[in-house]
């Protein structure tokens, strides 16, 4: 950091403390504050959204994985598919391959999900870094301006109270430079303040065209995913006997299981 930068920083630190404690009169701009608060709301929501979207992908993975594990367990009752003739286990090895297809479904989904949902959100959030830089800069300018203004006021007050001292030339000159400095600082502050006031709403309004496609993609990806899974499983169901679905719908499948249980009960194992 340069010497000037350091000096500035030290000065600002003092001014900031005075700002906080209310000793220093603070410049207020309602219009700007309004926009900044909206911007902050957007920032917070969008960052949270990004986090939850990542979380969603994880949940989807967990769900599919556990479905696969059930299928695996069921299939293994019929032996390990690795070392048997595939055709000996029509139904259940199909179950296993199908559920592996489900797993692949998640893998297929991931890149698209990343491209259209996760990464855009990440990108959107990365814009905030730049904007936040500008907002910080504005804060610094404001501090400088406020500090110098307060100083000037103090001197002016001192002058008006002790008017008997004849103003010497030095002081007049320093008054002038102070005036010029103050003006320059005010200008710098106003430029950046106005720029933000104008630009923040623009950025905020661009959020809709930016995020809506991601939402659309999000919905469509889910649709595609569940639909794919449905069809994979549906293929499997075709291989089950045609009665099964009917039975499932009418609750007959459960009755069948109950009948098996009744039969095994009839064996009277414990008795």
């Amino acid at each position, binding site marked *: 950091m340069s010497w000037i930068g350091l000096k500035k920083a030290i000065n600002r630190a003092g001014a900031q403390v005075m700002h906080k404690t209310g000793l220093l009169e603070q410049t207020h701009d309602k219009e700007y504050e309004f926009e900044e608060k909206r911007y902050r709301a957007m920032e917070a929501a969008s960052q949270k959204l990004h986090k939850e979207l990542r979380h969603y992908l994880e949940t989807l993975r967990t769900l599919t994985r556990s479905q696969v594990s059930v299928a695996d367990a069921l299939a293994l009752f019929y032996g390990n598919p690795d070392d048997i003739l595939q055709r000996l286990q029509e139904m259940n090895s199909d179950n296993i391959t199908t559920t592996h297809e489900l797993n692949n479904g998640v893998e297929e989904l991931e890149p698209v999900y990343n491209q259209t949902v*996760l990464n855009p959100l990440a990108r959107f959030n990365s814009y905030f870094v730049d904007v936040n830089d500008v907002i910080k800069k504005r804060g610094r300018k404001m501090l400088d301006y406020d500090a110098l203004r307060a100083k000037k006021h103090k001197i002016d007050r001192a002058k008006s109270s002790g008017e008997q001292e004849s103003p010497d030339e030095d002081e007049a000159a320093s008054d002038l430079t102070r005036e010029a400095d103050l003006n320059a600082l005010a200008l710098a502050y106003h430029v950046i303040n106005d720029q933000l006031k104008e630009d923040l709403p623009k950025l905020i309004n661009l959020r809709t*065209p930016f995020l809506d496609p991601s939402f659309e993609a999000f919905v469509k990806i889910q649709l595609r995913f569940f639909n794919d899974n449905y069809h994979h499983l549906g293929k499997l169901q075709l291989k089950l006997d045609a009665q099964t679905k009917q039975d499932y719908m009418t609750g007959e499948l459960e009755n069948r299981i109950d009948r098996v249980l009744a039969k095994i009960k009839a064996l009277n*194992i414990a008795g």
Partner: protein
Amino acid sequence: MNRISKASSDLKDNLKIATHNVKDKITFNSDFNKDDELIDHYKHDIEKCVKGLSFIKNQTKRIGLSYWPRLFKLNLKLVDLFLRLLGESSLHFKGIEQFYEDFDKYSAELEVPLVHPKERELLISSVNEELLNYRSTIELLSFKVKKDWDIHVQQVKMRVDQMNSYLKDTLKLIKKRQVKQLDYNRTHHKVDKLQKKNIPLDEKEHEKLNSLDSKLKSQYDSFEILDNKLKTILPHVLTFLDEFIEDLTKLVICQQLHTLEEVSKRLKHFSTYHGFLAGDNGDLQSYEAIANKWESAITGTRLQIESFIGAINSKNPDLINKEIDEKDKTLSATKMWNKVSQTVTERAHKVKPKDHTNGVFNDYLALDPLKSFLEYNDPQKNRSETYHPTRKVDIDDIIVSKPPASPPLPPLPPRSNTKPLPMVIASKVTTPLPPIPNSQSRVQSPSVPKYAQFHDPLDLEEEDEDDTSSIISDSSFPSVSSISSEVLIQNSTPNLVERDLTRIYNGSKNERQVAPIPDLEPKHDIHPYHSDIFDKTSSITYKLNRINNFFGRILDTTNGGKKLIAKYDFDGKEPGDLSFSKGDVIEIVCDFQNIDTLYINDDKNWLIGRTSSKNTENFRMGFVPSNYLAAT
């Protein structure tokens, strides 16, 4: 001494033979060893099955009660966040009201009104609506799926628990057998030891040998009981387990399919409604197409934002013009964390049957005959061999005893053909002839609904109650069926029938524009015009009430009839039927077949009967199928 020793050696010899036989049976017989091996095999498999089933049960519970609901909950959370970003009153913050107030104060002083910041908010209402709709879609789905899975989880849990308890019983039985076997072997060993002594046995040892021998025998018996039981039961247990698991598999698949169908159906409906699928002929887009569409939608905005960001602060100029790619941008640390948490939460379970290749139910695996034909040129070659010769596969199926089926009952008489006719009889029996209707009500308006053409007897009865004369003139009965009018004319005295009555009736028939097709609904179809205390005129309570009125009326006019005996049990199928059991005496209150010749007289009809009882105050009354009764 010598004598004793001789006797003892005799005894020893005898015993030797006896024990040898037993020994032969249990230890030296190769079948026996095979049995042990087989039972051990079963035991292992059943243990694994219990574990596997428990795993499936728990995993189903997790999927149903945790993962699916969590997915939907997250989805809702996401859409809420989107709503906070894009929806109505998005980006509102705490204390925004203060700003609005200040603005109002400020703008009140101005001459030219400013646009209120609220109105400057950019809200695309279609986006808002889309988000809200998505929210309700997900809510609905969440509710439905949760309900479905709750039931499913319950069902699976209940049944798997039951199955497991049976399997555990089997394991206990196997263990019991092992214990008995061990006991037996121990005793056997002792006997052997005694017998191997070369010196003759003394008295005490003799006694011991004898007691051991009897013990051995009893142990062998109890062992054999268990052994036999196991050998009979085990193949059955495995068969049923096989069946159980197969059905369970089907159930699981169907449940998942059902949920997936539900989800994709709803999402598709939503997407179609909001035009997400437009331009693809309603087909689902591939992932690539989704990405492309997204890219074309977003690129303009992205460039705009990025150039704008570059203008205010160009610290990171690389960002601009860089495409958003599909790479996983998650930090490697996060990835690691995910992987760790995954291994913790993920519960995979391997069912390890002893026979890795064929699994637990190896001897039931059958090939499709068609496939075996293709493969081996023999459709019969569709069975893999059983792995053990003593395993009996050809045992008869266990039949759960059912209550003995009762002999088939005769079919009930048709109900439909009795429909229009009782009305005639009822009116004849219970009501005096209606006075001449005035012509105004007889003119039939073409807008009469078709069901007004045919009334139930009940309708007529109901009308009687209020005012007998209003049968025809009542505005809710603007028409009278043709049958009714004919009967009316036949039965009435000539001085009541004026010539123009016929003319007007026939005339109105000619005017009829709605075909008098009787409703195909069941006979107790109630006229919807009646506003009664019953809201639902289709409810059974309502019907029963009407039938009761009808019966009450018949009872007032008839004094009982012949008594018949029921030939079969009858439970009653429709409201109003009289249930009775075989041998009951039924008193026929009203038999339409006797009263009216129009009535179908083939003895297959519905009579009105009451249960005969000595106490005339307490009886039940209802419709009785005539072919269920026999003369006394």
